């Protein structure tokens, strides 16, 4: 319990300081609200419409692929640090992992997930017709 006393005092001080400052500004500050001041975002263009628009499904596909290859990189860094300790066994395991992921990469590439926009799609169709 002793070890935690400092933490509790710290939390109490933090919360108390914030509460006192907000309370003081409420009590002492002038209140002249205008619509501009009450807008959630005060600089730049006025907000128009909802932020929850529909996005192309392409964004989600790219986000998913990003996640997968981000994890690959998350494995790469610790491996780079511990490369010599892990030796050939670690090398073979990591390369196997990357090979499996690269099959997935080839798959999404060939499936046209990385082709962006109608121009790329039209070009692909034209190439297929020519072939």
């Amino acid at each position, binding site marked *: 319990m002793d070890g935690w006393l400092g933490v509790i005092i710290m939390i109490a001080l933090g919360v108390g300081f914030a509460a006192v400052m907000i309370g003081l500004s409420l009590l002492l500050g002038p209140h002249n609200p205008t619509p501009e001041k009450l807008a959630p975002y005060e600089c730049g263009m006025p907000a128009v419409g909802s932020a929850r628009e529909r996005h192309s499904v392409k964004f989600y596909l790219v986000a998913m692929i990003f996640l997968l290859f981000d994890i690959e990189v998350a494995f790469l860094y610790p491996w780079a640090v511990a490369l010599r300790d892990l030796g050939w*066994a670690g090398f073979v*395991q990591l390369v196997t992992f990357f090979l*499996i992921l690269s*099959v*997935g990469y*080839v*798959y999404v590439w060939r*499936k046209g997930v990385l082709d962006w926009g109608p121009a790329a799609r039209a070009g692909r169709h034209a190439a297929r017709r020519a072939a």
Partner: protein
Amino acid sequence: MFSSGIDAVVPMLCVTLAALAVMGAEAFRARGEQLPLGGLGVVGLVGAAISAVLLWNRNAVSFGVVVADNFGLFVTLVLLLVALLTIMFSSTVVRRDGLPAGEYYALVLFATAGMIMMATANDLLVVFIALEILSIAVYVLTGIRRDDSRAIEAAFKYFLLGAFSSAFFLYGIAFTYGLAGSTRLDRVGTYMAAQSMSGNPLILVALGLLLVGFAFKISAVPFHMWTPDAYEGAPAVVTGFMSTGVKAAAFAAFARVFLSVFEPFSGEWAPLVWLLAAATMILGTVVGVAQSNLKRMLAYSSIAHGGYLLVGLVAANQVGKAAILFYLLAYAVTNLAAFGVIALLGTREAANDELRDYAGLWHTRPALAALMTVCLLSLGGLPPTAGFIGKWYIFSAAVSAGYYGLAVIGVLTSVVSVFFYLRVVVMMYMTDRPAAIAPPPVSAVAMAALVASIAAIIALGILPTPVLDFAAQSIATIF
């Protein structure tokens, strides 16, 4: 790290390589080109089966976390059989429904690899990874018919509740790790054996969370809510795959964790599993009676069958442990064949899975009606089928372990379940008007798979001894 070799992972490696080959072939497939992707998968499955047979009795361990002991290999062989039959049934369905063949077969194979991993895992974290590998593949398979709103709904429900149950399971692993300082099953087992008298409440917390996680996956009541919707919405052949493969894999891991690691605490978990088993058998049967959709009815029936398997787990004597393995095999073949018939009777436009669609099926498709009858009799547990022998051993194990109540509930619910299985048979045979549906022709491959499963059901029912001995030997090596 390679000192222990990679022998134990070879079966799942074969299946994974086949899945990757299918994905690669699909990527380089020209538009409109038909590739024998199912055949590619079968090659991988056969390779995995050969390697599993070669590993028999060798107790190979890879990386310290995957053990190919005879128990794991027996379940592996059952899972490979499930995947093989699924692919054979799928050949017709994929073409008929216009499913994306490459993705479909790759997902079936990835799910199979995850199931094999789950059956042979010797580390709680590997069990979890395997659970995720198979679950994610099966979620996608459930919703693979993107033009069917029921399938989408089923996939979404299954995904949400599956993620929920994974969280329980992971939390249980976290508690176990906090207690034992390891997730390796052998080390956790050593710790638990030493703690059996301590009465540490955290052990019960870990135990309970893991139990909930497993109960979700084997759809034991009251964690079965997702099952009827997911099983009804998915394509019938996928339902067959997930009601047998996922259940077999989850049960293998369940048995491994609870019968070995938490064996010292069986006094604590046996009453809980007793309750789960009783509730599962009763609810699965009673609600199943009221269904008018055949897929939904079989979904409840598969819940009830999960209850019978739990009886074997509670009994936990030598007969019970062998009976679990035998029952898994008998149930897998039977249920898969039943869903195979349903899948083959559907068309692209209509699933034809209402009970009334089967009225007078005998007149239009006598062969399919006869095969379906054998499946239903085996599910109901009538001799001379595999289902009868399986139930016989499960209940006799319960009696010899002193669980008379469970045995009585099991027998009574079996009798009630015979009612709804026979109702389908009566519909098919004793209705004069020909079937309302015009089922499509059945491909030779799918028919061969059906006939082979029916032959296996009857063979297991008449000559169960070799397989039972096999099961008893394979389970005797570890527990």
